[in-house]
Structure formats: C-alpha cells, structure tokens
C-alpha cells in the first residue's frame, strides 16, 4: 500500500484514528487506557499507526517547498513550581496535599485538552489563497483534532491522559484523599473577562479563533514537556514514591503520546505561515504575519505575568500546608533555599519585526 517514492498525503479519519494491534493493553489503576505494548514490551502510543507517518509526510512536503517548520524555544518554558527538589522535600516531610493537588490539577487540565474537538473549523479552502490539499490543515477536522481530544480525555471506556495522570498519582502516593479545594485552585483568581480585542479583525472570525486556539495549545503542549520531566523525576524517586517504576513509566507513556500533538500543530501552523489569507474586506494578508503575531502574544503573556502570579498563588498554599509539621519554620527555610531563579528571555522569537 505504501510506495517508497510517493508517500501518501491524504488520509481518512478512520486511518488517523487507527492504532496498531497491541500484544498487551495498558491498564492503569484498574482502568483500561489507550495505547499498549508490543511483543518486546515496548509502549506504543494510540492512534499513531497512520498519524505519525502522515505528519512526517506533511512536514517533508513543507520543507521541500522551501518553508520552515516553526520552533518554539525551550528557553521560554517557565520552570515548574514547586521544582523537583522542593516537591521531594515536602513529600519526605509528609506534606502531601500540595503534590496531590498539583497532580490532580494536571490530570484535569489534560482532560480539558478535549475541547479542541469543539473548535469550529471554517471552510479553509475558501479563506486561504493557495491550495491546501494533502496538508495537515485539511485534516484538522477529519481526524487530527479528534485524535488529540481522545488522547487527552480518553474515549468511551478507554482512559486517556486524564486517567493516566490519576493513576500515576494513585500509584505513587497510594490513593490519597483529594483536597477539597482542587477545583478552586484550578480556577485560580478570577478577574472579569476583559473586553475581547480581536488581534486580526480583518480575518474571518472563526478562522482567527481557530488559529489563536491552535497557537495557544501548541505553546501549552511545548511547555508541558517541563511538567512531564518534573513528574518523572519526582514520581520515580523511591524515597517519595510508593511505586517508582510504575508511576514514572506512566508519565513516560503520556510524554511519548504528546509528541504527535506538538508535531501536527506546528506543521499546520507552518502551513498557514507559508500561505496567504483572504480578509473579509476582499484583501489579503500574509499567513506568517498572523501566525507569528498570535504566537508572539501568546508567548509574551504566558512568560511574563502568568508564571509569577501562579507561583504566588501556589506558594501561599505550600506554606499553609507546611504548618502541620513539627518545625514549620526550618522546613520553610529549606524549601525557599531550593527555589530556582528564572527570568523570561527578552525575545519570543516571533517578534512583529521578524514577520516578513
């Protein structure tokens, strides 16, 4: 079916949602999860049988025609708070609530990833000047968003990342009681939704919203790499984890499942960058201007104020949680001494001037 000379660029939805046959399914915390193992015991991510080669083929095509695939600098990734050493310190002292809360929030946020399937996709062929046949763009609504949604939230009785993070938490921390305030923490501070300013009012509104959503999810997915490493480091430490091997592996499986998400999103956004968009008033605008503008705003916001605000909120609850130990002051001091310093790089790499 696959010819070596011309890899296919067009896939059906069923193909993009298709998984290989597993020798053994992944069972996490009693829940059948997606993905599974081959006869050598190697883990294979779900829905990648055709999705992974498809994404490579679309990327190759883009590169062959002389365009880049965008890259988000890992230097922009804010550090995890609390960091690995701080998290381990707390667990060693029996302060578990903050960790339980963090892991639960991560699982919920992963689950929320499913809203990507509700993104309304406009008629792209009408809004983009150049043809889009055989691109990631033309497959968003026909398998790519749906596969992403199922990976994050699970589908029917097969768990996804939400359930896998819960399993990792329950393995490492032995089915802890979930603090009553997780959802409150998840929602964070509320301020009135600001009056929405459209960054590109000349664009079709659905298109603008879809591209903004994709840019946001791409950034979140890239930054999540830090979360995975943190999860692996903490949960596979036998000093603080009841099941270091199983819990750490669980996060590794999640990590490997994420790679197609980053890849299809950066491919599709790069395809837009390489094209021209029609505006509602009959004019045209370069795709790179739109995509770079959206990414710049997103990265700027996520690296400036958000990390500090989140840090302050979380720190408060950390300190509160430490008050039950024998000597809270010395624990607090040790905790603070382990803090990692970080300042956001000056450039996002998508500065308005860099857009051609």
């Amino acid at each position, binding site marked *: 079916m696959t010819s070596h000379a011309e890899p296919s660029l067009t896939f059906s939805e069923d193909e993009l949602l298709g998984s290989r046959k597993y020798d053994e399914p992944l069972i996490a915390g009693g*829940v059948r999860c997606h993905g599974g193992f081959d006869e050598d015991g190697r883990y294979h991510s779900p829905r990648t049988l055709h999705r992974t080669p498809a994404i490579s083929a679309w990327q190759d095509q883009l590169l062959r025609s002389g365009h880049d695939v965008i890259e988000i600098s890992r230097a922009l990734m804010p550090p995890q708070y609390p960091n690995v050493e701080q998290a381990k310190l707390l667990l060693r002292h029996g302060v578990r609530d903050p960790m339980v809360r963090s892991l639960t929030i991560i699982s*919920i946020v992963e*689950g*929320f990833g*499913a*809203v990507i399937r*509700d993104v309304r996709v406009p008629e792209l062929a009408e809004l983009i000047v150049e043809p889009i046949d055989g691109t990631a763009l033309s497959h968003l609504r026909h398998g790519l968003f749906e596969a992403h949604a199922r990976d994050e*939230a*699970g*589908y*029917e*009785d097969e*768990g*996804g990342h*939400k359930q896998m993070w819960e399993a990792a938490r329950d393995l490492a921390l032995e089915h802890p009681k*979930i603090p*009553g*305030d*997780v*959802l*409150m923490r*998840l*929602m*964070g*501070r*509320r*301020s*009135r*939704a600001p*009056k*929405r300013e459209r960054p590109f009012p000349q664009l079709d509104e659905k298109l603008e919203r879809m591209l903004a959503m994709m840019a946001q999810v791409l950034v979140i997915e890239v930054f999540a790499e830090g979360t995975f490493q943190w999860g692996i480091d903490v949960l596979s430490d036998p000093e603080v984890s009841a099941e270091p091997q199983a819990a750490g592996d669980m996060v590794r499986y999640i990590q490997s499942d994420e790679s197609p998400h980053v890849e299809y999103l950066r491919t599709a956004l790069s395809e837009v960058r390489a094209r021209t968009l029609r505006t509602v008033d009959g004019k045209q605008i370069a795709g790179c201007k739109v995509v770079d503008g959206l990414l710049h705003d997103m990265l700027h916001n996520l690296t400036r104020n958000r990390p500090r605000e989140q840090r302050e909120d979380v720190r408060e609850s950390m300190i509160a949680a430490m008050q039950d130990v024998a000597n809270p002051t010395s624990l607090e001091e040790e905790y603070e001494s382990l803090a990692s310093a970080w300042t956001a790089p000056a450039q996002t790499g998508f500065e308005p001037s860099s857009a051609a």
Partner: protein
Amino acid sequence: MKPWTRIRRSALVARTVARLWLIYKVPVYTRRLLGRPALKGPELDPTHERAAKVVLATALAMRGVIIKSCQFIATRSDVFPPAFIEELKQLHDAVPAKPFAVVKETIEQELGRPIPEVFAALDEQPVAAASLAQVHLGRLHDGREVAVKVQYPDIEEIIQLDIRNMKRACRVYERFEPQPLPLMPLLNEMTKHIGFELDFLREADSADRVRELFKDDDGVKVPEIHREWSTRRVLVMEKVGGMKITDAAALKAAGIDPADVVQDLMAVWVRMIMGAGFFQADPHPGNLFVTKDRQLVLLDFGLSKELPEGFGLGIFELMFSMMTRSEAAMIRAFQELGFRTKTGDTSHFVQIARRMLDRSETGRFEGEFTEEMTDEMFDAVREDPLVAIPSDFVLVGRSFGMLSGIAHTLGARANVLQAMGGG
C-alpha cells in the same frame, strides 16, 4: 393568630385536598366504569394543569407556607410533573402586597423605634412582594439608599399551622393513593428550608459569605447588609440596581456584549458550586442585575446551600464522563454524588445519562446542562422509582438549567467546562 383564622386556613386546605381528589380520581373511576384504559404520562397533562390551578388559587388566598411549598415544588422537578410546575411558576410575580400600615408595624416592632428614627425616607409602595416578605426602598439618615425586606406578620405561626395541615393531608393522601409520591420526606425537607428562609440573619450570613468569596473581583456585587438595622424579620440592605440580565437590548445599548455577561455569570456560579461548595441556589432573572460597567449584581440569598465536600469534583467528573461517553466513569460519578438504585443495578445511571445526551442539540455533551437536559434527567428519575437522587444535586442541576435558560435568552451558551477554564 385569631381562632377563626386558624379554622379558615384549615378549612381551605381541606377543601383543596378534596378538589384535588376529584380532579385526579373522578376521571379514573369514570374511565373504569366506561371500560377505558387509564390515562398515562403526557395524557395527564391537562389534569395536572387543572390541579395546579386549584393549588395556585389556594396558595394565593393563604400566602405563607402554601406559596412557599408551591415554590418548593417548582424546585423539585424530579418529583412533580412539568405541567404542575409550569402553572406554579406564576407565583413568582403574582403575590399581592400587604398595606404599608402592616409593614410599618413590623419594622417598628422589630427595630424597637419609630420608622423616622432609622429612615430619612421609606417608600410606602413596595418594589416587590414575595411569599414571606415584601421589599420597600428607602434612605438612611446618612444618605445611603437602602432596600428593606420586611417579613409578613404572623407568618411564622401561619407556617407552623400550614405545615401541620399539610402533613395531615399528606397522611390521608398516602393512605388512599396506591403509589404515592414521596411527599412526607419532601415536606420535612421543606420545613427545614422555610425555617432557614424565615431567618433573615441567616440570609445576611449567606450574603456575606458570597460577598467574601468575590471580594477581589470587582465584577461581582452583593449588596452590603446594614446589620445594625437587621433582625430575623427585617433585612436592611444597600440598594442596588441595574439592567435586567435578560434585557439584551438594554445591555447592547450600554455597549455590553451579552455573551460577555453570560461568561461572567457562568464563571460566578461555577466558582460557587464547583469551587467554594456554597452557592446561591436560585439564579432566576429577577435576582440578577447588570450595571452599566458590566458588574453582575446578585440578590436574594434566602435559598443558599452548602454542598458536601467533594461534590463539585463529583459534578465535574459526571460532566467529564458524559463528554467522553465513558460509562464506567458515569456510574462512578453518579455514585460519588450520592445517587442510589434500590436494586443496586447501576445500568439505570447509564440510561439516565444517555437520555440526557439525546436531548443535547448535537447529541454530544460539550459542557452545558441545558434546561432540556436537566428536565430530561428529572423525568428519567421520576419515571424510574428505583433511582434516588440527592436533593443537593436537584438544586445544582436546577441552577445550571436556569443559567442555561438565561444564556439562551441572550443568544449564548452556558458552558460549565469552559467557565472552569477549559476553553
């Protein structure tokens, strides 16, 4: 209370019960005599409607507990038929006010001084009259504008009598009806609720609690309570106002996008229900205003509810399982929320969720509990006597349904998952 009042009220209840009996039972016997099958389901709607009209008339004649119980019935759509509830909804506006002399007497008795000592001005015409109280606008001597909620005199004794009468009627009903609605437990629950609502200091506490929750959020307003002039029966509050939340034209004229208002509204209720576990459980449009600078004003904390720990997370998990169509997770979530089946057969839960999903516009659950979906859920529970639903869930489901109703009036959607930050 004068003895003849007592007799008259008891007689009214007795007569109402008798009329209900006629409305429901005479057709049954007639049909039986004529050899026709008994009416079922929607065929009974006209009967329910007529019955509700009788109850409504009695309620208006009696005020107090009967009105309150009708309002309560309207909050228990899991037990009572929709036709019944539609008719009783009118009670929200239909109550005639008491003359000012009566109000004046209550205020002066409660505050222990003549009205002019406390108020520089007090309107004789109420702005609203409800089941237990009416509201008058006025001004304090320092110039601050206030709204004064004044309980009807005698209401507490009247209610006690009414509850006794209703319990009596209820026992008669349970004796004669082969498949009675579970009225007695409801009556007990209602007695507790009314007791809470009669204590305005408790309402003041609830208002304070919600105000505290949003103290850093200048987009939410809960009127201040003037504690020095408030008692169990008189509540003196900061006067607030604004546009009616469902008045899309007014909102637009003020440069406010109704979709933003819906987003604010949802964020506020989701924060109360899912976050704080304490919420104003009566978000009908009469209790909500929007100011010119898009502040959301919340009124009426008489029906506020504390949820058990973990309830918010349970609701979230239920929505999530419906979104992903995970039946195992649905069953777990229903159980965590306190749903029970008499036989222990959990497939009932999956049936309920399926029926709800079928009522959503897209056939999928995207995070909104529409009125259609909550109605469907209550229908499902009512039709399946094997399933017991926790009363907290009824209040939450009903609130989400009401919010969804407001959202639709404004041409938007009341997406709970999105309001939590998932979109």
